[in-house]
């Protein structure tokens, strides 16, 4: 075992982690610890853009952006956080341009902007051009630009070090004065354990879309950060709110950006009807994602799906000029050609909603500080990006606001973490802090061979979640999911892996990841069961309207203490946290 001492340790090297590192490493000794090489992170898969009210091509202002974010999130958004994000969006985009990001340009040479779902002028009157973009690879350019600047600034990376445990000076559920102390990591190349002592820790480890089968998410998005935080007594917020992106390639889940609709693409059913005109008369195909995804699923349920199994709808770009498609949507049209053999110039593309983004995560305030409960922070602990819940996305994230989130709150967390580190000493760690991690790994590695396999349990989990906790949910389906997860957890307790080696044991890594997925899926299903209303991405067929009287509040899921009884037989206790409302009282959402 090796021990390292740093002021700030950042978990994850995607957009949020690297944006934080650029701030933190200027001010404090910083290590970025990441299970992937930095440029492999899923930020790079984001396509459409990053919204900011630059008003480069038409009138716009940050207040409209705030409103859209709040309304898009079905009023579960913390409005103070949304104001911060919309205001700081402008500098966040300009900062990236100064770092070298090659945005598409207007004829005047300014950053070009285009339309995106749910982004409007004058509080919903009409779509507005707010999304700053680099073709349909904006996330790729953000990831590359941040990495380039990390190279320039000589940020210290520990690549392929998998963080498995987060250390604090006590238990945030029961102890006073608990603060961040370090992380335990597993070096994939050697199998060696490294303990990083730190004054500040930033979770920037991304999402957990792999709890679902049909997903746009990378194989590696297994919710490691939220799950390890939860195991150590940090609550998770609003985990039942998961976004299903309307346009995944049918059967594959690979994402086709909303930019396709921003540039004029139209959704059609098997009758080639533009069905969004019925569901969202004003914004039509550019309504927020939850609205569009449900409309698509409903078309299929009512028998208007296309294809041999009538199980998808079409994204139609055939009325657009091929030159326009090539200039603005080159990557996603290539996905259609490569993976489905469809030529988007001439044929509509089969699409269906795909699990895309977790609105919930590790709760933070607007400085990125992690909350121990509805009110208190854990000093030295920070989170940003999809892994966090600040909450700027509420019940449903607007397109492009994720790239914005990572830049605005990654930056804030980086600054706050470094400032905190300047004020405190390195906490002492007792001997043997790595023991639980070592035991977890040895347990998985040393079990006698089994018929059952990690992959089988994972597939069963993903199919269970797709069948029961996807776009449409009911009390019955949520209970089915919870019971199923309990069974899967039992299987997980005995399943063996096959690779017994030390070096690059990715069989072992996948086993650890599955443990994290199981914990998070249970929290998602339990939250979905308890939220007896429909809001944003969470739709209950048995409670199909929003219920502000009873549910205008965040869900907080805590791991039960030893001896404590959890909800519905799970090891989870549910609490709440008030929603911050500053200027927009909840109203009915129409688009």
């Amino acid at each position, binding site marked *: 075992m090796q021990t390292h001492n740093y002021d700030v340790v950042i978990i994850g090297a995607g957009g949020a982690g690297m944006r934080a590192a650029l701030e933190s490493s200027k001010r404090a000794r910083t290590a970025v610890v990441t299970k992937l090489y930095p440029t492999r992170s899923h930020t790079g898969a984001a396509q459409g853009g990053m919204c900011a009210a630059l008003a480069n091509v038409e009138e716009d202002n940050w207040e409209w952006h705030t409103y859209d974010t709040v309304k898009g999130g079905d009023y579960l958004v913390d409005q103070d956080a949304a104001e911060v994000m919309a205001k700081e969006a402008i500098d966040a985009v300009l900062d990236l341009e100064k770092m070298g990001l090659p945005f598409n340009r207007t004829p005047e040479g300014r950053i070009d902007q285009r339309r995106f779902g749910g982004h409007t002028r004058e509080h919903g009157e009409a779509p507005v051009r707010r999304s700053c973009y680099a073709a349909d690879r904006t996330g790729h350019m953000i990831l590359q630009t941040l990495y380039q600047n990390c190279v320039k600034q000589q940020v210290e990376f520990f690549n392929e070090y998998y963080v498995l445990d987060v250390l604090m000076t006590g238990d945030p559920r029961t102890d006073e004065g608990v603060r961040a102390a370090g992380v335990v990591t597993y070096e994939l*190349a050697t199998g060696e354990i490294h303990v990083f002592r730190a004054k500040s820790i930033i979770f920037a480890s991304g999402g957990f879309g792999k709890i679902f089968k049909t997903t746009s998410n990378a194989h590696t998005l297994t919710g490691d950060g939220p799950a390890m935080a939860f195991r150590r007594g940090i609550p998770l917020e609003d985990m039942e709110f998961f976004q299903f992106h309307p346009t995944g390639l049918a059967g594959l889940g690979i994402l086709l950006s909303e930019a396709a609709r921003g540039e004029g693409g139209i959704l059609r059913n098997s009758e080639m009807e533009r069905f969004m005109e019925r569901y969202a008369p004003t914004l039509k195909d550019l309504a927020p994602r939850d609205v569009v995804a449900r409309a698509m699923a409903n078309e299929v349920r009512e028998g208007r799906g296309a294809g041999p199994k009538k199980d998808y709808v079409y994204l139609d770009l055939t009325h657009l000029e091929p030159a326009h498609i090539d200039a603005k949507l080159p990557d996603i049209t290539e996905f259609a050609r490569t993976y489905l053999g469809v030529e988007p110039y001439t044929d509509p593309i089969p699409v269906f909603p795909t699990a895309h983004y977790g609105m919930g995560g590790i709760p933070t305030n607007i400085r990125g500080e992690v909350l121990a409960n509805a009110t208190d922070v854990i000093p030295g602990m920070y989170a940003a990006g999809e892994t966090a819940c600040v909450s700027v996305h509420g019940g449903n994230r607007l397109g492009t606001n994720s790239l914005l989130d990572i830049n605005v709150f990654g930056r804030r967390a980086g600054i706050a973490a470094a400032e905190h580190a300047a004020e405190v000493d390195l906490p002492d760690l007792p001997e043997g802090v790595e023991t639980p991690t070592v035991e977890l790994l040895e347990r998985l590695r040393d079990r006698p061979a089994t018929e059952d396999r990690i992959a089988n349990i994972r597939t069963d989990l993903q199919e269970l979640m797709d069948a029961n906790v996807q776009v449409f949910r009911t009390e019955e389906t949520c209970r089915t999911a919870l019971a199923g997860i309990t069974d899967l957890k039992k299987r997980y307790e005995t399943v063996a892996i096959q690779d017994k080696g030390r070096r690059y044991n990715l069989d072992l890594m996948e086993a650890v990841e599955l443990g994290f997925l199981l914990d998070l899926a249970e929290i998602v299903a339990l939250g979905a069961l308890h939220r007896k209303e429909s809001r944003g991405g969470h739709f209950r067929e048995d409670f199909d309207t929003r219920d502000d009287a009873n549910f205008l509040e965040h869900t907080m899921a805590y791991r039960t203490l030893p001896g404590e009884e959890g909800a519905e037989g799970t090891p989870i206790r549910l609490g709440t946290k008030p929603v911050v409302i500053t200027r927009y009282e909840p109203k009915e959402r129409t688009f």
Partner: protein
Amino acid sequence: MTAVAEKPQADAGEIPSFEVTMRIARFTPEDDKGVHWEDFTVTMHGTDRVLDALHEIKWHIDGSLTFRRSCAHGVCGSDAMRINGRNRLACKTLLKDLDISKPITVEPIKGLPVEKDLIVDMEPFFDSYREVMPFLVAGGQEPSRERLQSAEQRERFDDTTKCILCAACTSSCPVFWTDGQYFGPAAIVNAHRFIFDSRDDAGEQRLEILNSKEGVWRCRTTFNCTEACPRGIQVTKAIAEVKQAVIRGRV
């Protein structure tokens, strides 16, 4: 009444399945077998990629088979490997586009030390990348808004911004195979991306770096890199443009 368009000619039919043999170069540092081939026969479907076949093996036959992957749709750059003798991304190579009547060979990319099975040590590759100053260096006073750049100026380096650092190009280059000191195509592509960016002021420094012994002049214009690039970047053309700039002594 909502808008209705013309129906497409035909819907995609049922997806056929087939058997395919994957012949994989195995290497475990912890045993004494060295590099050796192992065959696995799996049942796959018409839309499956090489990555799906590797997963099928890892998840259901041999959990010790080891390779990197993440996004699984050709944007993260993790899974470059040598498939039937050609560098490609496993997640972007459809099985049906290969000759499945014969075993499909899968090996690690060449020229970088093999760590285990299909995993190579990427550090030498990233070292070369870091040496070419792969970041914007803009002098003068920082503007309060964005720097202006015309659409034409932006277009000048568009192609090389697509690079995902997968190393398919560099590890397909015969010069790199024999001389690991050579910067390699990927590093030159990433230098090109800044040399031709109208906002950048360090072009001459980069040209000087690339005019060195291990720089652009090692390139023999074999076009392997261009063929290998999963992003369709005109790599050899980019290298040629850098060579011309070196000769001119300016961008």
